[in-house]
């Protein structure tokens, strides 16, 4: 058998300009209906668009806009019979996918239209090797088998710039990082050189620096192969970075369609204008004029000194401790009243663990002083008092409210635990909290599932406020929200701060949000702080290379300022796991002026 594989080698053909008038995919009047308790409901209504060869179409919208349902309808992967295509056509060449039978549809899926999904962690089968999953896609649609299919899989991995491609075939998904897995997904999707690639929120679950790299990869491969890309996203920064054409969707309907440059420069629909206005941008925060600059804080609400959190890993014959995860390694900072300190960094940097230590949720060493009380070495009554002063708001408003409790009881529960007030007093207090966070007191008897994501996050905020805390830890509290909701929740948090003088420890991976809300910023990497200073110091004069990279990686919601190339980041972030006895090198922070601390 011949070893050479006949296929058009990627890159030799000239990049295809989007001038060919022939549409690769044309959708007209697409309507998707979902069966609910109250009968059928349209989640996508009368949607029409076409995409040409080599073109990138971004479908943008907030949750519930029907953008994901559209992509699943094109692939005919709707969860039937609960959801179905009620009307319209999906023309791929002269094939109407909307009416194609399942057997013939299978020859289209993966072969002519491929898809990549949001969650790289769960989108690959954990029990099958990378190679097996790649090869199976190739074998299904080409005549290739055995070593030929394997060879093509290796080429596909090389195309997405995975090093040691051959060895990777034997690896399993859990052995790869999120960014690597998403590259494997892209390799799998593009191995068969499909006409259309649908990417449904492909970078939402990734860290910003990895996001930039994956987007660039998609753009490069698209140029080489002339693939049409349908990119589904909620992130207007990503839209600006990638799109030729943009469709803005809301409640299942198209609100606006046009060239990316036009939509960003002169949005026609009100909704598009609102959406763009709500997007947090780096630079907005500096322009914020709230009059009271944070001066030297006379009293600290919270002080953290040389905080260390380590997790033991067991191994060996008797299951003793052989290795340790150094999650937080000598972190020190303080927060004053009325102040917001943002802790930023990528996943695994220890920012959430720091928060948990302050809230007393993980054992730690070092010193944490909240409102004059030291956390280690205090009596259990004192610890309870500290807990009263520190409250948390978590990321996922869907998971952090007990679905079987009424929301009023959820907000009252902290007061009950700490024995505050009588039943009626608590009820009155909860009612006023509800009004304060922008809900109505009549809603107290409802259950969490009856609220939207933004409303639930308001309930979480009310719950955190119930004990009149001195410090609120907001751990990615707005990350799961749509931008318009996010903007309103951020505004509420700022108002509450002005009113009650609460200090915030604001933990986030989103540099634009951080710039918008924080007074001071600390950048964490592998359990240590690399740079800390006021917002203006860190954003106007980022002095550590890692900080600069974090800021640069944020996609700017303006197609005119599209970057040509992202900084390559082929290296994986090193692990913070060490053998017992070994410890990471501790960085020393140096003051480069006015309290701006930078690791040297």
């Amino acid at each position: 058998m011949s070893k050479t594989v006949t296929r058009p080698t990627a890159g030799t053909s000239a990049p295809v300009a989007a001038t060919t008038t022939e549409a690769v995919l044309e959708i007209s009047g697409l309507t998707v209906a979902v069966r609910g308790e109250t009968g059928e409901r349209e989640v996508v209504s009368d949607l029409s668009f076409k995409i040409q060869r080599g073109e990138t179409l971004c479908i943008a919208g907030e949750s519930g806009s029907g953008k994901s349902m559209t992509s699943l309808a094109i692939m005919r992967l709707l969860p039937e019979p609960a959801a179905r295509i009620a009307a319209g056509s999906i023309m791929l060449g002269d094939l109407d996918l909307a009416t194609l039978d399942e057997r013939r549809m299978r020859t289209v899926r993966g072969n002519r239209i491929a898809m990549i999904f949001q969650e790289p962690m769960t989108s690959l089968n954990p029990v099958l090797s990378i190679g097996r999953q790649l090869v199976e896609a190739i074998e299904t649609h080409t005549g290739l088998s055995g070593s030929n299919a394997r060879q093509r899989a290796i080429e596909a991995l090389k195309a997405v710039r995975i090093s040691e491609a051959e060895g990777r075939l034997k690896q399993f998904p859990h052995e790869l990082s999120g960014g690597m897995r998403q590259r494997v997904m892209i390799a799998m999707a593009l191995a068969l050189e499909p006409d259309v690639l649908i990417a449904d929120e492909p970078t939402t679950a990734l860290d910003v620096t990895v996001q930039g790299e994956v987007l660039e990869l998609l753009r490069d491969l698209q140029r080489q192969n002339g693939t049409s890309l349908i990119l589904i996203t909620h992130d207007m920064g990503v839209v600006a970075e990638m799109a030729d054409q943009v469709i803005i969707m809301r409640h299942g309907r198209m609100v606006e369609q046009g060239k990316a440059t036009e939509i960003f420069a002169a949005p026609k629909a009100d909704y598009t204008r609102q959406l763009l206005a709500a997007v947090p941008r780096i630079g907005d925060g500096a322009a914020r004029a709230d009059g009271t600059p944070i001066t030297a804080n006379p009293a600290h609400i919270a002080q953290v000194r040389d905080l260390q959190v380590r997790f033991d890993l067991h191994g060996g014959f008797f299951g003793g401790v052989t290795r340790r995860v150094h999650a937080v390694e000598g972190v020190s900072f303080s927060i004053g009243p009325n102040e917001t300190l943002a802790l930023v960094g990528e996943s695994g940097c220890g920012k959430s663990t720091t928060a948990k230590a302050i809230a007393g949720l993980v054992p730690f060493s070092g010193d944490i002083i909240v409102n004059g009380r030291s956390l280690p070495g205090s009596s259990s009554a004192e610890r309870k008092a500290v807990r009263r002063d520190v409250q948390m708001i978590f990321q996922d408003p869907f998971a952090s409210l007990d679905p079987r409790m009424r929301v009023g009881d959820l907000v009252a529960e902290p007061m009950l635990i700490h024995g505050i007030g009588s039943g009626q007093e608590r009820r009155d207090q909860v009612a006023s909290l509800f009004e304060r966070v922008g809900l109505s007191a009549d809603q107290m008897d409802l259950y969490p599932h009856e609220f939207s994501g933004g409303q639930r996050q308001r309930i979480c905020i009310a719950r955190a406020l119930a004990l009149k805390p001195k410090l609120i830890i907001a751990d990615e509290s707005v990350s799961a929200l749509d931008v318009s909701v996010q903007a309103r929740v951020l505004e509420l948090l700022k108002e509450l701060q002005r009113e009650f003088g609460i200090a915030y420890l604001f933990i986030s991976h989103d540099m634009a949000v951080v710039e918008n809300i924080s007074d001071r910023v600390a950048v964490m990497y592998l359990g240590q702080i690399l740079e800390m200073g006021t917002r203006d110091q860190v954003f106007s004069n980022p002095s550590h290379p890692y900080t600069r990279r974090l800021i640069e990686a944020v996609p700017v919601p303006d197609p005119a300022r599209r970057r040509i190339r992202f900084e390559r980041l082929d290296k994986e972030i090193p692990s913070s796991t060490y053998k017992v006895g070994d410890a990471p090198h501790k960085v020393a922070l140096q003051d480069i002026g006015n309290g701006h601390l930078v690791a040297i």
Partner: protein
Amino acid sequence: MIAYLCRRLFQSLLILLGISIITFALLYLLPADPVRQIAGRSATPATVESIRRQLGLDQPFLVQYGRYLWNLVQGDLGRSYIQRSEVSELIVARLPATLLLMVGAIVCELLIGLTMGLLAAVRRGSATDQSLMVASFVGVSAPQFVVGLLLLYVFAVRLNWFPIGGYGTFSHLILPSLTVGILGAGWYARMMRSSMIDVLRQDYIRTARAKGLARATVLIRHALPNAILPIVAMIGIDVGILMGGIVVVESVFGWPGIGQLVWQAIQRVDIPIIMGVTLVSAFAIVLGNLLADIVAPFIDPRIKLR
């Protein structure tokens, strides 16, 4: 791997030691007197005392247990009080029959249970699903001696397809295996159904479908190995449950296994046999769990033995 095995075997020995102490103590505290059983009703007190001394049953508990343990370490399970032969020989003679029944029962359980569960999950919400789940409920709730007698009546007495009882050929094995297996099949059907439904909702199943794979490939290659993982762990634990069922079923079908041996021994307070069978069963359970743990990493590469 070797270190892991050594550690697990060491742990198993500790478990067996614990079980031997507990069983020995329970039998010691039993109000029934084994010596009376051996000597018979007409024996004089002098004869009874001499037998008691001969067997060492006049010694304090710790001495008795110490002596038993010392013999056990040397591989000696003692002699039966009644049958006058080595316990180890009695067990070895009957063990193959029980193991055969056990294997038969596990095969029935998995074959029936997993197929039912898989079908129900794929046809979720349909009439097939509902009737399969009702059937599994009946399987789980029916007492084994009733199931055994029912099967005997229908398939052996009425239809004459299988022998009524005994041991020797393949057709002897079917009804007892089914009787033990039906209970487990009910459990496995329910577990498999919920596990499979859970897996079918996962993102990687959607990925597999998006690749254009055939439905059967998605089910068998992508869903099944993931769905079966929690069930493999159950099989290990199941060995213990099976042991209990086998004691009942062996006497219904006249199956010459250790279940019958221990049943007779309990009636006659034949302590060495009870001890021997208990330890062998415990060893089988421990081994079953160990096997399940060793198999798991072959199905799921994320599991590491350490």
